[in-house]
Structure formats: structure tokens, C-alpha cells
């Protein structure tokens, strides 16, 4: 039976972890590679890096991070943030990323999803959707949530599936950082609209939220950042909790 996945996400800026696990025995708590290794040893089903490096000069730092991580972690690694072109994707995959997530570039130029899925295969193309509720629908935001594209999230999700996306990473901008739980309404609506797997993101504050993301949001995988940081919950605890709620997980 296929298991639901738990994906810890690390924000990386200039090659360093912004938040992160605050374990005393870490040699270098700011090193994304060490943090990723802790997660993968702890049972994370995948690892996600979100590169939030603002300046162009430091953008190359992520490639070194990916290269070093792929020599230490033997679970799938997804890298997002600033992925704009086939050249970027090629570079990340060559460094050892297994998947890339494309956000703003997919909105501005949907052809990049079409071209990259043809060239590299749908299995490595994740389209990241940042959506915010507006009345009775959700709209797509870009540039880290700053710009409203006005696009309808459900229609956009379907279009990205048609363009060859292998998975959708859906983040509710209303919930992101709030720790009050996923927008399961948004998740389940998108999940029923498409046939590709959905990864839920944005708003996790406790382990019940992960359960809700899967049971109510119909997500195939749940992504979370802060609950795994600072040792609040380990990935193993999260898995045992999901298991106790009857959700199939890899333990």
C-alpha cells in the first residue's frame, strides 16, 4: 500500500538554514546538510529546500548545498525558490536534486513547465501554488506571496497538470506561518480537480493538522517547517501519530 509522505521543509538563505532544528549536538546548526541528514535519518520521506536567497550574487550557494546534501541523504530531495528556467532546473538536477519546484516562473511562463517536463520527465517537476482566498475562490500569488496574479487556483492547478507537472505543492497564503492548520478546503478542492498527487503546505502548528491535511484535505503528502524545527516534534513522532490515526505511513 502506498504510504502518505511527511516532508520537512528547510528555508535556506545564502547557503544557510534560516530557521532549523536547535539540537546541541550539531556541529554547525546553520548547515542545511546536517539538518537534512537529521531529518532523513529520522524517517523523513523526502526533504525540501526552499531557497529564499534574495540577491542574485548569492544564488549559486544553493548548488553547493544541494550537491553536498545528495551525498549524505538518500531520500528524494526537492529544491524550490528562484527556479526560473530550464537552465536552472538542469543545474539543480545535475547537482543531485531529484525534483524542482517551480512557482512564479510557472505563472509567468507556463511553457517552462511544459518544456521541462518533456525534457526531464514529469517525475521531477513540482509546481508550487501559493493561493489566497478571495470571496468564494482562491487566487494565485507570486513572488513569495507579494503579487496577485488574479488567476483562479483550481483552474490553474488543472492547467499545470495538463502541462506535465508531476505533483502540486499547494500553500495557503492565509494560513502560512499562522500555525492554525492547513486550509483543507482549498486542498481537497484542488485534489479532487486533478489526478496528480498534492502536497499540502502552510499553517501546520500541531500533529493533528497533519492528520487533517491527509484525511480532510485529501493530500498525498504533508509538508511542514516550523513544527519540526527547534525539536518541537520529530518526524518519527509525527509518523507514529499518523499511524495511530489509521493513516498509512512508512515507519
Amino acid at each position: 500500500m502506498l504510504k502518505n509522505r511527511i516532508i520537512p521543509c528547510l528555508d535556506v538563505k545564502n547557503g544557510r538554514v534560516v530557521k532549523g532544528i536547535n539540537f546541541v549536538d550539531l556541529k554547525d546548526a546553520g548547515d542545511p546538510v546536517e539538518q537534512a541528514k537529521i531529518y532523513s535519518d529520522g524517517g523523513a520521506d523526502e526533504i525540501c529546500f526552499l531557497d529564499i536567497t534574495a540577491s542574485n550574487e548569492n544564488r549559486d550557494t544553493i548548488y553547493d548545498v544541494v550537491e553536498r546534501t545528495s551525498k549524505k541523504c538518500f531520500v528524494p530531495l526537492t529544491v524550490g525558490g528562484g527556479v526560473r528556467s530550464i537552465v536552472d532546473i538542469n543545474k539543480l538536477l545535475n547537482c543531485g536534486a531529484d525534483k524542482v519546484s517551480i512557482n512564479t516562473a510557472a505563472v509567468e511562463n507556463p511553457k517552462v513547465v511544459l518544456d521541462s517536463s518533456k525534457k526531464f520527465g514529469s517525475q521531477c517537476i513540482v509546481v508550487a501554488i501559493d493561493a489566497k482566498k478571495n470571496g468564494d475562490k482562491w487566487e494565485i500569488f507570486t513572488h513569495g506571496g507579494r503579487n496577485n496574479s488574479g488567476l483562479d487556483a483550481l483552474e490553474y492547478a488543472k492547467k499545470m497538470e495538463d502541462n506535465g507537472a508531476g505533483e502540486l505543492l499547494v500553500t495557503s497564503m492565509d494560513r502560512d506561518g499562522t500555525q492554525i492548520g492547513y486550509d483543507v478546503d482549498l486542498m481537497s478542492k484542488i485534489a479532487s480537480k486533478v489526478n496528480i498527487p498534492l502536497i499540502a503546505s502552510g499553517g501546520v502548528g500541531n500533529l493533528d493538522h497533519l492528520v487533517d491535511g491527509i484525511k480532510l484535505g485529501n493530500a498525498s503528502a504533508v509538508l511542514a517547517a516550523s513544527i519540526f524545527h527547534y525539536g518541537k516534534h520529530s518526524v518519527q513522532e509525527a509518523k507514529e501519530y499518523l499511524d495511530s490515526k489509521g493513516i498509512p505511513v512508512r515507519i
Partner: protein
Amino acid sequence: MNVTIVDYYSGNVSSVLNSFKEAAKYKPDLNIKIKLSNKLEDIKNADKLVLPGQGSFKNCINSLKGIDGLEEALKEQVQIKKKFILGICVGMQMFADYGEEDGGSEGLGWISGTVKKIKIPIKFQENCKLPHIGWNGAGFYVVRGPIADKFTNRLGSGEAGDKHFYFVHSYIFHPKDIDNLLGETYYAGQKFMSAVIKENIIGTQFHPEKSGNDGLLMIKNFLCL
């Protein structure tokens, strides 16, 4: 021991390279050298071969056949010299006679059978997506002989499949001869082939290089054959 990972431009192979290098560390006595190459001399000099594969069957087979002399060199080493080869994902699928993806194309024809798209029955459509992405169990048959036993050593056996491996695919290989079936996996109410074996030819639908410690163990088992 020389191990050549066949590089025929099928996409990202650095994960395969890294995982084999990691698994080789457990066996320093074998003096394993791992190389990523499509040079014919590296194919000939290899003791073991690895055939990765990502993307579509058609792209992969066209790309492999597009490299001058590669198919013949592989055939000689695998079919005549009987060197061990491990096919991963589409690399494994290419062992088949035929793949239906993208209008269809001929495979290498080393293991009789066809690669077809997974059919999701209507009652499973709401919860079972395609591609089949993520961690799933694999159960390995115990009656496939000593090579199969060594390859799946300490990775469980029987139906349940208590060991998990990482999958990402929409197509599956249906071998003609049931004796080639090495492992099976359940998805969307059906069982499908997730590992094949025919003498020295071994393949997995899942990605051992992305399957954590159990995947590394399987790679180590392969290196020890």
C-alpha cells in the same frame, strides 16, 4: 571491482552515482570503483553494470540507441558474457520487448514482456493518483534462486512487503514468464511487478538510490553478487 553506471543522457543520474559510492563504502575489501560513463571501453571493462532511466520509455530507448555501439556493447556484456546488470525504473523497463508510452517503441528485448500504463479502476480514482509517487512496500519471492536471494538478502520476503521503497512512475512492466517476477507491490487494488530477474539481469521499478537505508542495502547486495 569496476562498476559502470551507463550514462546515456537519461536525466539526473547523480543520485545513482552518490548512492553506489555510499554503498561501496560498506565493502572496502572489494575495492569497488564506480564510474559514470557511456564509453564502450568502460562498458567492456566493467564487472557490473547499472542502467538508470528517467522520463519516458521512448526518450530513454532512443537516447540509448542513439549512442554509437552502446546497445551492442551492452548486449555483448549482458547476454553473452553474462555480467550482472541492475536496471532502475525506466532502465529496468527497457529490458522489455516493447513499451507503450508515447505511441510505443521497441525495448532491448532481454526479458520478454511489455510495459503498459497503470490502469486505475474507477472506485480507486479518488484516492489513487498517477504517477504512483512515494513509498510503497515490496514483497520478494523466495523461490527465484541463489542470486535473487542474495540480492534481496535482509529485505524481507513474501507477500506483505514490510520494506519500503521509493516509487515514481505511471507505467509497469508485465513480464511474459512468471519466473522472471522477483517482487510485487500493491497499488490501486492491484498487484504489479516491482522487481524482475532473469539470470544475471535484475531490475527494480522503484529507486533503491532514493530508498534510504533499505535501498542502500539492496545496492550493497547487488555489489556483493
